Every structure is written in structure tokens, then in C-alpha cells.
């Protein structure tokens, strides 16, 4: 029964995540940007814009300009999350790739960095007056969700080790459509359940900031308005009909 729920849960959450993200990405892709609005100074070439986006994604450049504390905690959380996720690849692939093995030691400590980053962000959300004002229930709950996933993960590593071999069997079974029992470790079940919830929430929440950044006209447009005429399809229609 448990296995059926988690198996179905993972499939459903994955389908929902892919559907939801694809729907949003297609929507962003199809919606035209009628005017040139890059935040200046902006790069003059496509290569420059790619670098600008890379700096935003990797270094959080704008956030760094804005607020060193939010940058520090936010960047720490995201970088650690990336490491932790890469480390988790070992549960989904067989044999485990060499570089995933290399990531392993960093990935385990990354959990603590995630915890610290999230806690600090939550602290700010509660105690900095301006941020408290703009925070709603979903903003707090999102942090709670991420904190709970991180804490349960760390607990399985440092407090009550779970049967990692059985878990990997379950995961590989999901991928290979050769279903295996989910280990009945309560902490693991909490961890997996929350991850399923996170996957389901992702495309319908503020987590859309991830794809959103790539479509942000103030960041992804080339500064070339004088050289190259930019015209949205609906504006071209207006022009054709209106003259």
C-alpha cells in the first residue's frame, strides 16, 4: 500500500511538474515583448546577454548589488541545494558516475549550508520589518517545506541512517518501471513525501522565478534598439491595419 502510494505519487508529481513547467515555459516563450526594455547599461551582443544571464544565474549579480545579506543567504542556499541535488544523483543512476562520487563529500555538508541559509532567510522574513510586511503565508510555508526536506535529509545521514540500498532499489525501480517496495522508514517517508509536494507546487508558485529569469526582458534583451527594428507580431498587425 505504502509502495503504491509513493510510486503513484512520484509518477503523478513528475508528470504534473513537467506539464506545469512546460505550460509556463511555452506561455513565456509565446508571449511577445513588444518593446525593448533591457535595464541599462545592457550588453550590445547576444553573447554579452548570455554572459549577463549566466552571471545572474550563477552569481546572483543583481542581488549582490542590492543587499549583501540576502545575497549571502540566498546564494548559499541555492549553491548548497545544487550540490545536494547532484549528490542525490547516486540514487538514480547505476553505475554511479565518477564526478557524482567526487561531489559526495561536499554534498553531505551542503545540507548544513542549506539549513543555515534557509534559517537565516526565515529569520529575516520574521524580524526585518519591511520583509515581514511583504511576507504572506505561502512565503513562510515555502521556507518550512524546504527546511523540513533539508532537516529530514540530514537526519537520515547523521541521526538515524536509512536503508540506502533499499531506497536506491525503489528509485531505480521507478525509472525502470520495475516497481520495488519503498523502505518503511518514517523519516524517509516524510522526506520523500515533502519532495513530492515540492515537485507538485513548483510550477504553480513563486518557484517559477527559476524559468522566469531566463525570460525576463530587462535581463535577456540586447541593447540594439537603434540598429535593429524590434516588432512584436501583434504590433505588426496593428501597423498593417492602422495606416
Amino acid at each position: 500500500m505504502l509502495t503504491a502510494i509513493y510510486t503513484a505519487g512520484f509518477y503523478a508529481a513528475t508528470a504534473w511538474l513537467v506539464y506545469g513547467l512546460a505550460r509556463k515555459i511555452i506561455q513565456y516563450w509565446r508571449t511577445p515583448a513588444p518593446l525593448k526594455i533591457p535595464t541599462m547599461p545592457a550588453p550590445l551582443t547576444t553573447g554579452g546577454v548570455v554572459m549577463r544571464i549566466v552571471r545572474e544565474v550563477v552569481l546572483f549579480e543583481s542581488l549582490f548589488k542590492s543587499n549583501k545579506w540576502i545575497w549571502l543567504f540566498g546564494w548559499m542556499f541555492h549553491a548548497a541545494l545544487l550540490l545536494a541535488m547532484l549528490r542525490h544523483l547516486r540514487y538514480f543512476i547505476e553505475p554511479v558516475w565518477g564526478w557524482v562520487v567526487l561531489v559526495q563529500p561536499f554534498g553531505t555538508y551542503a545540507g548544513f549550508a542549506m539549513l543555515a541559509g534557509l534559517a537565516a532567510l526565515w529569520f529575516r522574513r520574521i524580524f526585518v520589518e519591511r520583509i515581514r510586511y511583504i511576507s504572506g503565508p505561502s512565503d513562510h510555508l515555502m521556507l518550512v517545506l524546504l527546511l523540513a526536506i533539508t532537516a529530514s535529509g540530514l537526519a537520515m545521514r547523521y541521526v538515524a541512517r536509512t536503508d540506502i540500498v533499499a531506497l536506491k532499489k525503489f528509485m531505480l525501480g521507478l525509472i525502470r518501471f520495475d516497481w520495488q517496495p519503498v523502505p518503511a522508514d518514517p523519516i524517509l517517508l516524510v522526506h520523500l513525501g515533502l519532495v513530492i509536494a515540492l515537485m507538485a507546487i513548483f510550477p504553480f508558485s513563486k518557484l517559477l522565478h527559476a524559468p522566469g529569469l531566463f525570460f525576463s526582458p530587462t535581463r535577456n534583451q540586447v541593447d540594439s534598439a537603434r540598429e535593429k527594428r524590434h516588432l512584436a507580431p501583434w504590433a505588426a498587425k496593428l501597423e498593417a491595419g492602422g495606416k
Partner: protein
Amino acid sequence: MGDYKAPELSEFTEIPPLQEGAMSHSHPYLAAPEHQEPLGFPGELVEDWHDKAIARFGELLKKSRALQVYLDSCVRCGACTDKCHYFLGTGDPKNMPVARQDLMRKVYRRHFTLAGKWLPWLVGAEDLTEEVLDDWYSYFHQCSQCRRCSVYCPYGIDTAEISMAARDIMDHIGKGQKYCNEIIGKVHTIGNNLGLPGPALANTLEGLEEDIEDDTGVKVRLPLDEKGAEILLVTPSADFFAEPHVDGLMGYAKVFHQAGASWTISSYASEAANFAMFIGSYEQMREVALRIRKAALDLGVKRLVFGECGHAWRVAYSFLNTLAGPWDFLDQNYPIPQHICEYTYDLIQQGKLTFDKSANDHMTLTFHDSCNVARATRMGGVPGGQFEIPRAIARAVCNNFVDMAPETIREGTYCCGGGGGLLTDDLMELRVKGAKPRMDALNQVVQNDGVTHMIAICAICKSQFSKVFPEYGFGMDRVVSLHQLVGNAIILDGQETGGNGQDETVAGAAPAETEE
């Protein structure tokens, strides 16, 4: 209104404690039917305004990627919360960019997202009630669309895009703003914001020619509607009569004269400003922009040069090619359009202008980067030219120049407090308070470096500072046009130099005799 005080200046602009509702009373005069209807908007609030507003909202979401992406992407990290000059000047939390956006985002969530339809309490989704609409009208008219928040947002969310969309929706249900819509109507019928008809304009320009001749002994022309001229100058109509704008216009004329250029102003397109940008109407903005195209074609000019104006330069630099292009009939060897600062700077680089910098020695100057020029345009061939070129001109024509604190200039510049269609007397309290961050930074260089005057290259900045300077204890004449300084220092061929100590005859320190 009226019973407010300008905030006390501080060494650094401090983040104020939150004062909920501190500016909820602030809203501009509502547009009357005679301001709304010529623009194709309903004259007054329509009966089914709620449904109409949501319908228009839905249309805009399909038309603007920025709006769609920005309403989804905010994580409420707080990076923008201390970046808006109106928040810093008023302490009203709804003037924090994220909170301002959330006024619109909560309605977006309610009507256009799954989470907001099913779990409105969880994600802060709300219906567009009358109170929410009133908040929109109040707080989307407390955003000068200066884009400072967009610099600091990790996703580049630009509150200007949100407030433009909100104003567009309100226009479409009959809740427009008088100041902007009345002005746009004047441009459609008369050709400029001021409603200055052709003959009056001709008269004004003649008067300015006489002023320059009296000052310098040189006949410098300010041509109007001259067919076959090479350059069409499009400048904000405030340049024709307001102080210190008009001194800037005389400066452009002297530069053109000295360069031996053939140029003209058009009475049909006698306005660089395009207030349709402020109300977020692509259609209106295009109509206004097409006047410039028609004037360029009718006069047969080869080049297009814009005078000192912030949002006008945004519309010109970033939008004109889109709205009224292609400009294939103009000389492709020059940027289309070109900013007067680019034009003057090129001449300086080529050594074609000579200056007597001592003509500006009675002033110590600093430069206010206008928000739209700084964050929405470029000058010259390299990113950041919009910061360097005006400063290079200032340094070429004056001896005493000092910059304000680095976090308050260039891409981090503070809005003057009057941009975005808020330069109206019915928003005076907002304008005064919103100027505080700029006034703090200015006060520092006044105290420490003996700065006497601030240069601006935007008609709105110039008018706004003339008005709010006295509220902070500065003289209203302490704001100057960049080309006013150029005009002071430039040595025209055949100019009566007068001898030593006669700089004042050249310097336009005495105000030109134009109507107030």
C-alpha cells in the same frame, strides 16, 4: 493636502520605519470625459468596470511577456524594499516596489492562477474590489517608472511595466489620470504638451534669436519648419519657455550654429515628450511618435536629433524604431535618433568647438543622472555612454565639477521625484517627499564640496527640481541645463569677446527674458 513638511535631510538616506497608509490619501485628479474620450477611453468609470478590468488585464498578459513573467516570478526576497525613492521619502510600505507590484499581483493570482483560485488566503490572492481599485489609483500614481528597483531585482522585475499596465487597465475602465491624458490630447491636436500653437512658437523662437544676438553679437538662428534642413531637432516643449530649459535650447542652437549645421524645429512635432509611455498605451505612444515620422518626411530632413529629456530619450532611443520605423529615408551614417549630447560630444571630440570654461566659474556643478536616460537608454557606442558623455561635456565646459555619492548616480541614480507622469501640482506632497534621496545626496556635495548647481538633462527633472529645491532650502535656480553650460562657454565665430572679466555677457547667468 498642503499640511505636510519636507522631510529633514540626512547624511545618508536612511530606511524609514514603516508607516502604513502614510500616503494612501495621495492620488492625482481624475481625468474628465473630455480628457478620456479623445484617447478612445471611456469618459467615466463604466458600470461593469470589474469585468472590463479583468478582461483588459487578460489581454495585456497575452501582449506583454514582461507583465506575465514579472507577475509570476517575484519571491518576495525583499531586495527592492529599500530602493524606491517614494518609499524612502514617505515610509509608506505600499511604496516598496514589491508591495506596489503585489497590489496587482494579488488580483492576477485570484483571476489567472490555479493557486489563487483555489487557495486565495494562502497565496495572498484578492478580488479586484473597489478598495483595491482605489489603492491601484493611488499607488500606481506613486511610481515614477524610474526602474531603480529593476536594477536590484534578482529577476529584473521592473515595476514600471506593472504600473504602466495598471494605468492602462484603469484608462480602459474610465479611471484615467487627468494630467497625462489631457496632455496627450494636446499633442494629438496641437503638437506639443503645452498646447503652444505654431505662430506662438515662431514668436518665441524669434525672441530667443534676439536674446542670443544681444548677448553675443552673433546672429544665431532657431529655424522653424524649414524644408530641406538636414537635421530635425525634436525637443521637449518646456525647452521653449521654462527655466532653465530654455537656456538649454539656446545652447543647442549655438552648437548647431558653430557646427555650421542646417537644422530645424517642426511645429507639427514640436514635442519630444511622449506621455503615452506613462499610461502604458502602446497605441497612444505610437500615434504620438508617428508625428515625428511625418514631420521628418514632410521637411525632408536627413537626421533626427533629440533635445534634453529623460523619458523622451527612452521613447526615442529604445522605442522609436519600433513605433515609427523603419527610418530608411534618413542618413544611415548617423545614429537614428541621436541625442543632442551625442551630437555635441562628437563635435568636441573632433575639436570643432572652443570653449571659455571660465564662463562657468561662478558655479560648482554636479550631475543628476535622469532615471530614464540612465536605466533605459544609451548614448554613444559603448554601454554606460549615457553616464560618461554628459559628464565629459560638463568637464569640457566647466572647471568645477564634482560627482555625488556613487550609490546615488549612474545606474543607481534616484529619480527626481516628478517622473512618470507625476509632475503635477495635485501630487505636490509626493513630489517633495520623493525627492528626499536626491536632496540628501546633493546636500552632501553642497556641504562638503561647495557645489552650487546641479545639472540635469531632462525637462521633467528641471521642472521638478525648480519646484522642490525651495522646500529643502536650496534656491530654485540651482538646477541648470547641460547645454546651458555649453551655451555659456562656447565661443562663437565673430563673437564680441568683450575682454577680461566680461564672461557674464556670454554666461546666461541672468535669466533670459521669456515668459514665466
